């Protein structure tokens, strides 16, 4: 019996071909596999490029300013956000300890597990007084966590005293863990001490300060990406403001109302709109939309609604043109989502006596909401990453202002404008574009992941 088993094992090990044999036998399969791994290589290449140069940028800024980059600013830990961190970590430790050894609860004093009313009221008053004293919003928010933890502990004690199963819910622990990570980040960077803090929290973007030597770092330079990010957000959300009502409306009309002949005209036109290059849209914004916006801005300036005269290059201009650019995307994706809804839902609603508009708004849109949402998220990601149209329409002055009639600069426009001139590798200007690019990449990646997740959710539903 054992001998038989041994021969079987031997045979199967002989049948098992080595990797080299497998490759020579199934050559096509492996060639095709290697072509598909190029996707991984490209992604890794992008991430490596961006991360490497961005890290160089941060460490160079920190070096140039006399900060040691790894240390950042640990004095932030002693501030109110540091206190918040301590509270969170204590709660986390408590949660972890209780999840490991729940029987400890029975040894806890009765004041904790079954508090009397005076104790509770006293603690509420203490918290209220702390709120008045502490000015940090973060700490005030974090002070609510112990209350929540206490309530859980009491509940856990009640559960423990009855013979029920152990709780396996770990979401609170994860929540506390990521919460404390976030607070840690805030507490060491909010003082604008470190290079990261300057990049993420300050609002002045002057990468070419008035320095003797433009190429190296000097104190007049400031790298607060928020001024670029703010304009990007203005443009992207302004674009959604235009594209979402028009695009979704268009999609509903095409899928619910329009005759096939009209669809045959409108759909190719939308495809054509989607096919026009972004630099042509930029030219269009520059010669046509800009002057129109200026006329409106002058009207507003004359009435004192805005505090500075308008310029031809402005975020509104960019928002309008990017809105027109992403309109076909929203329209076609939303239409796909609406068409994917089973016809029974529509017919059922109509059979109950609802009008078509009621069916559309109360049944069809509800049913395809996740698809429409996905189209909006992906359109937002496209709007954030749009470059040439925005460079030509919004301008090249990085300012942090809420006045949308003044020239500003988005993140993509900064990269395009900065790299347009001669840019020797390794100098600070060259490194800034990678730091901005990494931030842009992370934002669009998050939006894409979210959008694709929502999209697959509705694909699964039908």
């Amino acid at each position, binding site marked *: 019996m054992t001998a038989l088993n041994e021969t079987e094992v031997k045979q199967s090990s002989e049948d098992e071909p080595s990797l080299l044999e497998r490759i020579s036998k199934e050559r096509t*399969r492996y*060639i*095709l*596999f290697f*072509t*598909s791994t*190029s*996707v991984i290589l*490209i*992604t890794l290449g992008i991430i*490596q*490029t*961006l991360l*490497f140069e961005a890290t160089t940028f941060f460490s160079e800024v920190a070096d140039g300013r006399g900060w040691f980059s790894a240390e950042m600013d640990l004095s932030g830990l002693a501030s109110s956000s540091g206190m918040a961190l301590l509270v969170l970590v204590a709660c986390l430790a408590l949660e972890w300890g209780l999840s490991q050894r729940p029987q400890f609860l029975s040894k806890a004093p009765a004041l904790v597990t079954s508090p009397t009313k005076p104790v509770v009221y006293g603690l509420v008053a203490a918290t209220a007084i702390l709120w008045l004293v502490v000015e940090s919003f973060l700490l005030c928010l974090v002070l609510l966590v112990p209350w929540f933890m206490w309530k859980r502990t009491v509940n856990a004690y009640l559960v423990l005293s009855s013979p029920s199963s152990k709780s396996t819910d770990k979401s609170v622990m994860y929540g506390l863990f990521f919460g404390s990570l976030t607070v840690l980040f805030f507490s060491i960077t909010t003082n604008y001490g470190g290079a990261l803090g300057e990049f993420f929290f300050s609002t002045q973007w002057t990468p070419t300060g008035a320095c003797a030597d433009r190429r190296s770092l000097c104190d007049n330079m400031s790298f607060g990406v928020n001024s670029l990010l703010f304009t990007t957000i203005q443009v992207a959300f302004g674009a959604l403001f235009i594209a979402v*009502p028009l*695009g*979704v*409306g*268009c999609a*509903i*009309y095409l899928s*619910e109302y*329009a005759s096939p002949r009209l669809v045959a005209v*409108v759909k190719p*036109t*939308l495809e*054509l*709109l989607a*096919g026009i*290059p*972004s*630099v*042509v849209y*930029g*030219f*269009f914004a*520059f*010669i*046509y939309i800009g002057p129109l916006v200026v006329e409106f801005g002058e009207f507003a300036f004359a009435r004192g609604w805005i505090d500075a005269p308008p310029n031809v290059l402005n975020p509104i201009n960019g928002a309008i043109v990017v809105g*027109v650019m992403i309109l*076909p995307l929203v329209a076609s994706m939303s239409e796909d989502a609406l068409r994917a809804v089973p016809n029974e839902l529509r017919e059922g609603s109509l059979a109950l*006596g609802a009008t*078509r*508009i*009621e069916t559309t708004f109360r049944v069809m849109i509800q049913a395809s909401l996740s698809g429409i949402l996905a189209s909006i998220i992906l359109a937002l990601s496209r709007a*954030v*990453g749009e470059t*040439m149209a925005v460079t030509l329409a919004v301008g090249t002055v990085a300012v942090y202002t809420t006045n949308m009639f003044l020239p500003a600069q988005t993140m*993509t426009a900064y*990269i*395009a404008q900065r*790299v347009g001139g001669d840019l020797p*590798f390794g100098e600070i200007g060259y490194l800034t*574009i*990678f730091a901005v*690019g990494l931030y842009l990449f992370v934002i*669009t990646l998050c939006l*894409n*992941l979210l959008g*694709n997740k929502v999209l697959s959710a509705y694909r699964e539903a039908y």
Partner: protein
Amino acid sequence: MKKDIDLLKKRNRRRRDVMEKVGSTGLALSGLIGLMFLSVLVWQIAIPTFIEGETGEVSPASEFIPVSEYILKWDHPTVDDNGDLIGDEVVLRLTWDDNGAERTHDVAITVTSERNLREDIVVNESGVSTDAVTVGKKTKFYVQSSLTVPVEIEQLTGPVPAADETGSPAVSSFVISADVDVLVSEGELVSHPFALVAWVVLLVSIVLLSYPVTPLLKGMESLIGRQRMLRFGSYGLGVLTLLAGAFSLEAYLGAACWVVSAVGMNRMLEGMERLRSQGRDITQFDRLKHSITNREGVLLWARMLLVFSALFIPLLVDIPFLTERYQDIFQPYASGIRSAFFGTIWVMGIAMVVSMPVSIGAAIYLEEYAAPTGMTKLIQALVTNLAGVPSIVFGMFGLAVFVKQGGIGMGLGPSILAAGFTMGVMAMPIIVLASQEALRSVPSSIRESAYGVGCTQWQVTRDHVLPSAMPGIMTGSILAMSRIMGEAAPLVVVGAAALVLFDPEPLAGITGGNLNFTVIPIQIYFWTSEPEHAWHSMAAAASISLILLLATMNSVAILLRQHFRKRLNP
């Protein structure tokens, strides 16, 4: 319940009717606004392609500046030595507001070859001093106004101030001019007679394949059985055309015409033979249509070839803006996009060669071979997310990997090769997704029947799945190419130049030589950034050229898609 229905009937019907109408109209309007944007866009880009002459405004006079002036200057004379007009006459129109009434006055300007001849135009309360002035070339002269309102100046006709000796361009002429010569150009045939004959033969065979008339079919009947002779005869003629045309573009097109028409005629003769062997009448075109192998496909390719070669063989379409003129920094209107045009073609060609095999291979692996493991899921997720990465990030990837020397950089410099690789990487996820979609839509019955007769996996893929999926893959690839053709952002990062005065060298990144290159979108970007209005006209003209090129590519893709869709589901 009854109460509810009554309510619905009586009280709400009116409101619901109104809601229905308003709602549907609103939704229709939102679709129409999209269309309106498109028409406004095309219209607004078309306007600047018509050249404007001198336009401006004389600022109003005040107590500090009693007479305000506006400088005018023409570079070349508008009359020859005998005093005859060379081109159009230059006419300026002055317009101003005279106490609420609009007053206009036209002034004719004669520019002579004599220098330093100056005559000013004076505008005051009583009107304009003169109806015609004579000035010298390259001489400044003025419009002087003592009015307290602005005077607008507009050139109605004649050459623009920076025109060349021949008086072109003139006001309101179109920037993109095209010379079309039919058959004969300057006393010579536009192409070799062989090529011309080939084109005519292609035309005839297309007509025969699509609308055969009975006498022609009867005439062809005598050719049945001589297909071999016909085929080798056409191939010989093709070679002859190539040799006679000295391997020019026309010669290649002529040879292609011979080959395609030979294929078409051969298939038709085979079909007729098949019909006759069944004992049917070959003049029944309905039957003949179905017995010709892949008639629709041959017709599609033949028609495309006919239209494309028509630009070179019977006609000679010459668009100097696109294929002859380089950028001219002193005379904007004399500029063209030759270097950008060829740069675009090279960048797209390299991108296609780099990306298509890799991405189609990846798509085949993911759809046909891969087991649903974690690796496959990862690759799939990466493809989906790469398709959404902003184009400028790809540009930065290209800058660090292809352009830069050292580290992981290949050190190609800001050259066509680096640009082509970058664009290829950018096109890859789009092509993978489109090809996957196409492979997925191939019915699994095809695969199963091929496995059923004992094919290996690669044979199934190569011989059965790929041919059915090819139209979808091709459409996706063409659309991806047309998308990267309009992209400027990655190439701005890679380092396309603003001013290129020569044809690009595609392999300069490896062999050395001049690296500079530009593409049409980059040219539009840099021209739009110029302050002078004339450059905006050129940017508009380049935009229109680009849109037309893209529209052509997209319509080829759509034609292919519709044709093959019809063939797959007859």
